[in-house]
């Protein structure tokens, strides 16, 4: 194998040399210049983000790139928005394997960034971003590997239950449920007025899997969850308990019929569509949900009026921290050989002013202190408050455990939803995937 690797290295080296000789290498290939050399030579940064659809998100990133160029005329930024799945599953892995990855690109943190660091793809930015890290707070940990910073988030939020206030009122539910017993009560009351208590987009797998994540968060201690993320160790019985609790919950039939084929978002037949159009009363979803509800609603004004948000209820007498929440975010990272200006641009993206502008687009919650004023929507405001007051934010389990374990876990959870899987099989599938 050693010979083969050396051959590959040689090939890579000679190709790089050839590119440099041909003048295609650009300024980006050189070693990181000292601080004083910043902005001296013209550089072009390529930036891949996932706001691919026309809308406020994509427009805002274009503006950010233009503004940075106005501040630092030596830096030109080539922006490309690529659909999330395509970006994460094919474009980015392939580009990182080649010798010409984008300079700055979407990074989801967790197990994935760990693999990327192990393959030496990313720039260690620990020393350059100390101020930004201090301003953002504990959310940055998701983009850390072994205590070193490799990326920074621009969006972060916890998930909770989006609900229809009008339907709650009609069903005689006075306050949002704070415990699962109260949630079960609410489900019964909503059934009595003939609406779907909870919509779940199990067809897309992850919206269903998130229910299991929340049961795991309630059943497992924070230490167990940390250990599971770092070592892929799933021996603790709490992971089986999560499946048992989920099964008991599904048996109360809180979801719409045939949920196994219901997509999560983006069309009127999706779980999102059911909530947005008043057919379902609740949906478990992340902080981005306001934006996706807007795209499928038939009556925007009514939606704005009835939509509310509350944190996932606690389970009485469980081992987990009742104030802990599941969450996740979006960030950016710089490629190993990206020019030093890349880090400057990353710092610019997470600066309070840019973050405030991002919050004003309504596409997600900002992470930097000083950007809170940009959040106008009342539902988003309550998420921001809950995020700040959460004692522990656990990253989405499929992201935290890495795609391989995450995918196997989601598949096995979906099998429970379909009625042909067991709680034990989820843990077995996770362990088997960790070995693959």
């Amino acid at each position, binding site marked *: 194998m050693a010979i083969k690797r050396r051959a590959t290295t040689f090939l890579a080296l000679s190709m790089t040399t050839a590119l440099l000789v041909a003048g295609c290498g650009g300024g980006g290939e050189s070693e990181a210049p000292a601080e004083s050399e910043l902005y001296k030579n013209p550089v072009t940064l390529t930036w891949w983000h996932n706001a691919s659809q026309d809308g406020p998100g994509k427009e805002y990133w274009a503006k950010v790139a233009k503004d940075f160029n106005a501040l630092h005329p030596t830096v030109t930024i080539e922006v490309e928005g690529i659909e999330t799945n395509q970006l994460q599953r094919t474009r980015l892995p*392939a580009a990182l394997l080649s010798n010409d990855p984008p300079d700055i690109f979407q990074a989801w943190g967790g197990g994935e960034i760990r693999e990327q660091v192990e393959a030496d793809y990313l720039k260690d930015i620990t020393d350059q971003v100390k101020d930004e890290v201090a301003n953002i707070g504990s959310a940055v940990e998701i983009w850390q590997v072994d205590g070193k910073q490799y990326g920074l988030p621009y969006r972060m939020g916890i998930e909770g239950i989006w609900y229809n206030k009008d339907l709650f009122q009609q069903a005689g539910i006075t306050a949002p449920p704070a415990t699962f017993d109260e949630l079960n009560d609410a489900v019964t009351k909503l059934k009595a007025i003939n609406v779907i208590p909870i919509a779940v987009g199990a067809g*897309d797998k992850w919206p269903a899997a998130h229910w299991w994540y929340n049961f795991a968060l309630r059943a497992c201690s924070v230490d167990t969850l940390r250990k599971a993320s770092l070592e892929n160790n799933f021996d603790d019985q709490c992971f089986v308990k999560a499946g048992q609790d989920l099964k008991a919950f599904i048996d109360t039939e809180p979801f719409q019929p*045939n949920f196994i*084929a219901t997509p999560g978002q983006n069309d009127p*037949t999706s779980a999102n569509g059911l909530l947005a159009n008043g057919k379902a009363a609740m949906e478990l979803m992340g902080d981005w949900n306001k934006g996706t509800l807007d795209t499928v609603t038939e009556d925007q004004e009514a939606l704005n009026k009835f939509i509310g948000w509350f944190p996932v209820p606690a389970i009485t007498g469980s081992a987990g921290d009742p104030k802990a929440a599941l969450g996740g975010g979006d960030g950016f990272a710089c490629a190993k050989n990206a020019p030093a200006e890349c880090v400057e641009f990353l710092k610019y993206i997470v600066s309070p002013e840019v973050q405030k502008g991002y919050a004003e687009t309504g596409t997600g919650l900002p992470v930097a202190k000083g950007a809170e004023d940009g959040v106008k929507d009342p539902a988003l405001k309550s998420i921001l408050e809950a995020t700040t007051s959460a004692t522990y934010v656990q990253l989405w389990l499929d992201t935290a455990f890495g795609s*391989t374990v995450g995918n196997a876990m*989601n598949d096995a959870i979906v099998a429970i939803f379909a009625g042909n899987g067991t709680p034990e099989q989820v843990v077995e599938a996770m362990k088997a995937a960790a070995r*693959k």
Partner: protein
Amino acid sequence: MTSTNPTLDLAGGASAPPAGPRPARRSSARAAQTRRKWYEIIGLSTPAVIVYVMFVLVPMGFAFYYSLFRWRGVGPPTDYVGFDNYVLAFQDPIFIDALRNNAIIVFGSLLIQGPIALGVALLLNRNFRGRALFRLLAFVPYVLAEVTVGIMWKLLLSDAGTVNAMLESVGLGSLVQAWLADLDVVIWTMLAVLTWKYVGFAIILLLAGLSNVPQELNEAAAIDGASWWQIQRHVTLPLLGPTIRIWMFLSMIGSLQVFDVIWVTSVPAVRSLGASATMATYMVDNGFFARLWSYGNAVAVILFAISFVAAVLFQRFLLRRDIEGAITRRAN
């Protein structure tokens, strides 16, 4: 892959030494002619061969190479595991489901599309007003993009969709199904959508075949007192044999590799439970979404091997008569 075999045979046939002894004085001119012919063959085929090697053979070689590792597409592959990925695939019940689904689609397509296409083609081959319009209509689904077809049927077949509403309104409420959610039904729904999509292709092929059946034979049979049915059964159908066999071949290979219609029409959860997975969707779900790149490559190689063996067997036993003479042997 399959299309190259005739080409190779053709080249082999072309290079066969000329039969019979030649006068000595003509041999040098003859040799020069042969040489020039070879230059032509090499010169004209080289670009195509290079493209073929670069974009077909080399990637196939890489797929096989990567399939022997435990590799998630991060960094170079180093963890050599031999044929473990192949063993894992055949141990995964979902992959076995995918194989079963592919078998259902291969045989279901042949058994359902074949008779329909034959019947419609025989009808459309007769002279009547509006024949061109009906031919066009039969072919429209095939021309539509797979993704368009997938989304269209996904909406039509949803629980509150048009199909169920139509069944209700004509008093067939008992037939209402969760077409895309019932795990026992969904593969048959997929088969129906695929049939709708591809039957037009079979019809057009058979119509082309029918236009090659000499009218004289039909007339001769009619003069001998054969009825329309007898003419179809004993004259047209045998002459249509080569076309039917070619269509069966194309349908089989297409069914083994079917991906897009299933990917779009059937949601990820139903696929991952094995209810509607095919080898190709299983490959993408595992290779890209579970980030098991080397495992995905192993599945790709298995898919290729199965298609290749099926193609070779089909050519060897069923297409032999059709290819022989026309392609493999030099016409006299």
